[in-house]
């Protein structure tokens, strides 16, 4: 089959590789219909998460058709149209029973790296380095899906492929941030980042009853999408003082919940951008946390800051004093998609959640290296490059 492989820092190629096979009785093989780039892939491609081997297949957000079923699979059969959660979770350990699926004890067959790095290992993820289990990614014509009864979800009739695709990760990640950030009716929610995840976090905030949702970015086309498709107010941090705007918008209080959907390669204005890049280059921090810093400062007293963007290890100049003295709740998580995908698919079927607009550039898998370059450079207003592996 054909697959998009990471071949070195900032190097990708489409290669012919072996087809996947059933390895466990609860596996299915999915013929990938659509897969999308994700901002968190850029951390892998750029070498910021240095646990990739040359030849590893990228991709974790996808949907397709079941073409082969393991002997212990009960909920799927050949021909099912499914969307698959990007995280791999067994559904039966204590963490899965608490619905903290990305923390699954059994989804990462290679826990040593993340135990050394973070203390304990989270679950596995498709195409997200050997630190997250070494599972082959979904930017391929076929992919093996472990624990398929728990991680693959039938797509309802009436939901088109392009809409369903984003239930796999973007929407489920957004739902994770708004839900675990405990957005309540009447809240004002600020979201840093107007990419796919940020827009979905804003949509999830509305779904939980937020009264006002503000999305912050610097890319005009993304802010326009957030306004048009998610009905959010927007702020461009290159044009205005975000802290001042948020205070003005909230009667001087600050947002109740601040969701950071940017991650470890954040940009900002002013000297802190240079400071963070120098520190990163000197290996004194692995991640650039400027959006988190801003969220912590902007959040109201006693509010919640949720880190939804991906971070790898350590950051510098973290405003812990503000967290403590303002009585903030600081929380983060990878996505617990198994918990939210059913609701997301219901909303898609009801027409109350719009996602297909995120797919600004649709192309064959053969063009995926170019697609990722466009995505990285934000060329031509690229919000997501979506790949069709069988075109």
């Amino acid at each position: 089959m054909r697959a998009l492989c990471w071949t070195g820092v900032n190097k990708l190629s489409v290669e012919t590789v072996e087809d996947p096979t059933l390895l466990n009785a609860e596996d299915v093989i999915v013929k990938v219909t659509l897969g999308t780039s994700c901002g968190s892939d850029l951390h892998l491609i750029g070498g910021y998460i240095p646990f990739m081997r040359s030849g590893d297949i990228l991709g974790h957000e996808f949907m397709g058709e079941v073409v082969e079923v393991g002997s212990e699979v009960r909920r799927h059969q050949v021909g099912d149209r499914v969307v698959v959660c990007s995280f791999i979770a067994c559904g039966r350990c204590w963490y899965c029973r608490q619905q903290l699926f990305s923390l699954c004890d059994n989804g990462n067959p290679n826990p040593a790296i993340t135990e050394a790095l973070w203390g304990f290992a989270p679950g596995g993820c498709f195409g997200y380095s050997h630190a997250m289990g070494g599972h082959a990614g979904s930017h391929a014509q076929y992919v093996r899906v472990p624990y398929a009864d728990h991680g693959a979800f039938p797509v309802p009739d009436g939901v088109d492929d392009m809409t369903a695709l984003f239930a796999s990760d973007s929407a489920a990640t957004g739902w994770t941030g708004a839900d675990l950030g405990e957005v309540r009716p009447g809240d004002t929610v600020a979201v840093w980042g107007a990419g796919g995840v940020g827009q979905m976090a804003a949509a999830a905030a509305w779904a939980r009853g937020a009264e006002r949702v503000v999305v912050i970015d610097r890319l005009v086309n993304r802010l326009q999408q957030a306004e048009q498709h998610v009905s959010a107010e927007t702020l461009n941090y290159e044009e205005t003082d975000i802290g001042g705007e948020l205070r003005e918008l909230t009667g001087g209080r600050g947002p109740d919940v601040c969701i950071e959907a940017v991650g470890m390669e954040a940009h900002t204005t002013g000297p802190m951008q240079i400071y963070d890049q120098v520190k990163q280059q000197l290996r004194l921090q692995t991640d650039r946390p400027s959006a988190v810093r801003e969220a912590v400062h902007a959040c109201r007293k006693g509010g919640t800051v949720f880190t939804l963007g991906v971070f790898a290890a350590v950051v510098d100049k973290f405003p812990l004093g503000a967290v403590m003295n303002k009585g903030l709740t600081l929380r983060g998580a990878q996505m617990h998609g198994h918990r939210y995908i059913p609701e997301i698919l219901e909303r898609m079927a009801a027409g109350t959640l719009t996602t297909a607009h995120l797919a600004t550039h649709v192309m064959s898998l053969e063009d995926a290296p170019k697609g990722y370059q466009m995505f990285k450079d934000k060329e031509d207003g690229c919000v997501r490059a979506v790949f069709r592996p069988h075109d």
Partner: protein
Amino acid sequence: MRLGTSVVVGALGVGAGALVRRLWARGSAQAETSRERWLVVTVLLPEDEVAPAGRLPEPLAELGDRIEVEVRPAPGDKGTEIAARYRDPKEEHAGLASRVEGESPRQQLRSALRRSKQLLEVGEVLRVSPAPHGERSATPGGALLEKVTEVGRKEGRL
């Protein structure tokens, strides 16, 4: 490229630092107690399903009398704890070479505990290999990562 490379080295440095701190702490503890700690996993099942009639899961049973095992309920309805260690402390202090090869007794015990937990909770041990992949170029980093993943279940903080 230069930025990317330096970040890679930085992140590896953070990981290596964590590992060195852990090994250093372990070395200090060894000096004080001359024994490694118990290795413990928690399984989300009641005690009588974890070790029915005292029968241990196969991966642990295979280690026979070489290990001592404690099975006890976990607090807060979190299931059952399985703690294990070698009866003979000499087995715990294998040389670096056997550890690099993934054949040290402690690595075997750690792997047996992890596999036992998966067998009990899920019914089988999750496999990841063989996984499809493109061409692997020979690099020092790739060789190191391959070695690390070979012992992925045998190492870690368990």
